């Protein structure tokens, strides 16, 4: 069998190619990006014409995947956890319609917020939509889980979620490749009502979905990803997904004799959990993310038989580590060295020569003469303008919020109301907000820092490249107030003047600050050689 050292993300991508997908749909987002990139770079995927270009955002990605499923083919859709918020409308409703060809949605959570605004747990979304969720614990399981999830999706006619976290996505291990399966033939949906969510159909669809729940739990009960580790005594551990690894690390290192039940599929299978917990007096619940199932098992009346993140046995927030589990299992930590006081923090920073640097320098100068200095910003490399030496921005909430928050603040009377947004973020979620501002004639200055790429996540193609001017014109921004600048030292005075002038304008202005990301430029040069 072919063995390769793969990131969890890559194992999923390979699994999807082998499971016969006809397309992957995604918008980049750490820690999910590498799944789609692997498929984009795969020779096999190219040969079998698996489509894989980036989507404009997670909602368009999800809907396209659903359309491919409607046509009878298998589709994969990938995103980071907050991406599912963007796709949520399509996602929740796709559980009511159900699917035709298999549809697997991979959602990569980021506990500890290594590269994110929050650490929301997508398993909650799984419950919310009433669909099956698989939570692999290692890279091999991740590979196998994709095949399994597509089978389950076609068997249940539901979308299936694969929930992973940063640690699994970004860690490598040796993966054995299984057999590959051909793509589905084109076989469009024949049910003429299922996908039309008019109330009468939707009610029927919702009942159909609820009717499936017992069956889904029985699939979880028999899941190949469950595992029982025998042990003695009246204390046991219920471990979910990747938390199982940390439990086993401690158990094998310290030769503990404790029964463990690992669950990697939801909805929660009742019988095996009942059987496992019934004979125990105390059960530690180890789950990565929110204490979703701990809360369920404790219940409203706080059954103290169960311990975990809610009672402080494990930390309430952040990613689990083997050390957290060791402590929870009463292992005395040997003394470890401490980080010497001399070690200074080294936060990330904008690259030398980055266009955002010159933009922020101009922006700081331009806004310095105004009494109120508020800059609504967004998510991307340019968010690093929040840190010294720039300290240029006041907000970073969710993709696209710079435009709309600036508009709302302008409506409230704030002047100037300035937004800074990246090109990829603008096409992801900024265009509709700009249309709101145009329709309301809001006095905002929207600066699109256009470096021609989606830099923060590693330099993926940006869907608006070379189209931004036309988009802004098309949305209805007055051409006289669309200014293009090149953020370079030598243009500093001119750029400051343009910014100041537009800050003063009582209407919608757009500044297109265009200069290529230096990392992308370097990569292109290397590729040319």
């Amino acid at each position, binding site marked *: 069998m072919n*063995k390769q*050292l793969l*990131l969890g993300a890559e194992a999923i991508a390979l699994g999807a190619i082998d499971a016969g997908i006809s397309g992957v749909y995604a918008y980049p987002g*750490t*820690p999910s*990006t*590498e799944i789609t990139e692997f498929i984009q770079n795969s020779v096999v995927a190219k040969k079998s014409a698996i489509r894989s270009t980036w989507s404009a955002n997670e909602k368009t990605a999800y809907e396209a995947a659903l359309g491919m499923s409607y046509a009878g083919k298998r589709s994969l859709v990938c995103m980071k956890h907050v991406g599912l918020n963007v796709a949520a409308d399509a996602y929740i409703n796709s559980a009511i319609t159900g699917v035709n060809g298999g549809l697997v949605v991979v959602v990569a959570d980021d506990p500890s917020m*290594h*590269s994110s605004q929050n650490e929301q747990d997508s398993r909650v979304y799984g419950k919310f939509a009433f669909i099956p969720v698989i939570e692999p614990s290692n890279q091999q399981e991740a590979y196998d889980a994709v095949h399994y999830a597509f089978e389950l999706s076609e068997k249940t006619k539901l979308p299936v979620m694969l929930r992973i976290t940063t*640690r*699994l996505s*970004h*860690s*490598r*291990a*040796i993966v054995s490749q299984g057999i590959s399966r051909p793509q589905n033939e084109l076989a469009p949906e024949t049910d003429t009502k299922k996908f039309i969510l008019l109330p009468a159909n939707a009610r029927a669809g919702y009942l159909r979905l609820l009717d499936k729940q017992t069956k889904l739990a029985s699939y979880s009960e028999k899941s190949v990803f469950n595992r029982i580790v025998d042990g003695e005594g009246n204390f046991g551990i219920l471990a979910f997904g990747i938390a*199982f*690894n*940390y439990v*086993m*690390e401690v158990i*094998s*290192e310290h030769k503990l004799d404790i029964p463990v039940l690992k669950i990697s599929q939801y909805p929660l299978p009742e019988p095996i959990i009942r059987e496992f917990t019934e004979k125990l007096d105390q059960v530690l619940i180890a789950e990565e993310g929110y204490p979703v199932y701990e809360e369920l098992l404790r219940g409203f009346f706080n059954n103290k038989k169960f311990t975990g993140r809610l009672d402080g046995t494990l930390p309430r927030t952040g990613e689990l*580590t*083997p*050390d957290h589990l*060791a402590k929870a299992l009463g292992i005395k*930590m*040997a*003394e*470890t*060295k*401490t*980080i*010497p006081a*001399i*070690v*200074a*923090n*080294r*936060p*990330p*920073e*904008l*690259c030398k020569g980055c266009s955002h640097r010159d933009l922020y320098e101009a922006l700081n100068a331009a806004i310095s003469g105004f009494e109120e200095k508020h800059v609504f910003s967004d998510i991307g*490399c340019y968010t*690093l303008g929040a840190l*010294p030496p720039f300290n240029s921005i006041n907000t970073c909430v969710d993709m696209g919020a710079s435009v709309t928050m600036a508009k709302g603040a302008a409506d409230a009377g704030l002047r100037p109301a300035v937004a800074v947004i990246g090109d990829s973020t603008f096409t992801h979620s900024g265009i509709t907000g700009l249309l709101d501002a145009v329709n309301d004639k809001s006095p905002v200055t929207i600066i699109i820092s256009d470096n021609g790429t989606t830099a*923060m*996540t*590693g330099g993926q193609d940006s869907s608006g490249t070379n189209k931004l001017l036309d988009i802004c014109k098309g949305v209805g921004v007055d051409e006289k107030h669309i200014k293009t600048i090149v953020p370079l030292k030598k243009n500093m005075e001119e750029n400051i003047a343009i910014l100041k002038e537009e800050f003063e304008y009582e209407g919608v202005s757009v500044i297109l600050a265009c200069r290529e990301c230096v990392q992308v430029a370097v990569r292109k040069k290397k590729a040319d050689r």
Partner: protein
Amino acid sequence: MNKNIILAGVGGQGILTIAAIIDLAAMGEGLKVKQAEVHGMSQRGGAVQSHLRISDSEIFSDLIPLGKADLILSVEPMESLRYLPYLSSGGTIVTAIQPFDNIANYPNLDNILNTIKNSGRSILIDAVALAGEAGNLKSSNMVLLGAASPYLGIEKEKIEKSIEQLFSRKGQETIDINLRAFKLGLKASENKPVNI
């Protein structure tokens, strides 16, 4: 056989090339490998680390427990200290002495180097000088790999073979430079008085 290695550096310094070579060699030996990496935000010039675990039995956790690292291999001196809580009592630090100074408050280098020397068994390598001697400054990571190679639990010939394999697409000259760098690093570390 069981080795836990923390690779440390600054985003963009290329610690994953070192990891890739150790991975290849370990896999060639039929060992199991797990390697947790940092992608995303911190890669922009922030502190980055990789947990590399090699074993002949099943490896559960992608993360090394505190106090269980046999080796901290750092391409930057201050970064070697950031992960000290992971170092086991008998563990070794192998680090380059050249600072990567991209912050306003980078500490005094002599203080850093002295702290490293006082932190356990440590091997400080002038990776830049030896890389220059090998023929290309970019080979400094291979110098460090060479210096760390006695502590990896894998025969050095196997590692050299992996270097050849990894750089095979880049031509014989690149392979030779990197092998030379590896050997210079190894020699330097063998000749170094080790601080305990």
